């Protein structure tokens, strides 16, 4: 397993847990309609996201060298995969945010306004989705180019 694959797995775990926790906070206890006015949930979400970033950067630091002691831990193939993952992530995040905005517009068109809590959701979800998509794309591209069969 290369450094980029190892980091992708840890990223999926860290941000997957954060995303699950944030979804529980956002959709539970009154749901999106009351999230914007609930300081406790807003602070909890901020702490959760902050913990996610701390865990993520700690993981990046701890995985800066290869545990197997390989001399080269990343090469041109990893760079190529990272570039493709970046491009894919950008498209996925743009499409999802676009679809979410359209969905909110459809859902609240009759009411005339969107609960402000959804802005928190869109902001946080875009960050988490970017990390998760990039990690998933990295693993998929490695799978396709690596020793696990044709991709």
């Amino acid at each position, binding site marked *: 397993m*290369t450094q980029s694959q190892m980091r992708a797995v840890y990223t999926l775990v860290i941000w997957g847990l954060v995303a699950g926790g944030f979804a529980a906070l956002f959709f539970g206890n009154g749901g999106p309609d009351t999230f914007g006015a609930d300081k406790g949930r807003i602070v909890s979400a901020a702490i959760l996201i902050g913990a996610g970033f701390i865990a993520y950067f700690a993981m990046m630091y701890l995985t800066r060298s290869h545990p197997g002691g390989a001399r*080269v831990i*990343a*090469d041109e193939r990893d760079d190529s995969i990272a570039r493709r993952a970046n491009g894919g992530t950008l498209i996925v995040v743009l499409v999802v945010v676009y679809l979410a905005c359209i969905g909110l517009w459809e859902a609240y068109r009759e009411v005339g306004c969107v609960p402000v809590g959804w802005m928190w959701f869109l902001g946080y979800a875009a960050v988490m989705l970017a990390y998760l998509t990039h990690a998933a794309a990295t693993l998929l591209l490695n799978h396709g*180019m690596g020793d696990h069969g044709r991709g």
Partner: protein
Amino acid sequence: MAGAEISNQIRRLRFESEEMTQQGLADRVDCTRQTIIALEKSRYVPSLALAFRIARVFELPLEEVFSYHDR
């Protein structure tokens, strides 16, 4: 599709070079073992620099290690 157009003899050449391991070759050409695996399975097309480094390890001209096939 570019990966399918360029084939190589790396696997054969490794075994003819006293059964050089994938990690051994990777260390000599400054890449990861996974890249050697991908190259041997034609899943990845290397940069010219990496291709030249691999050919140099086997002391062969580039075209005896890599070959390009028109589709």
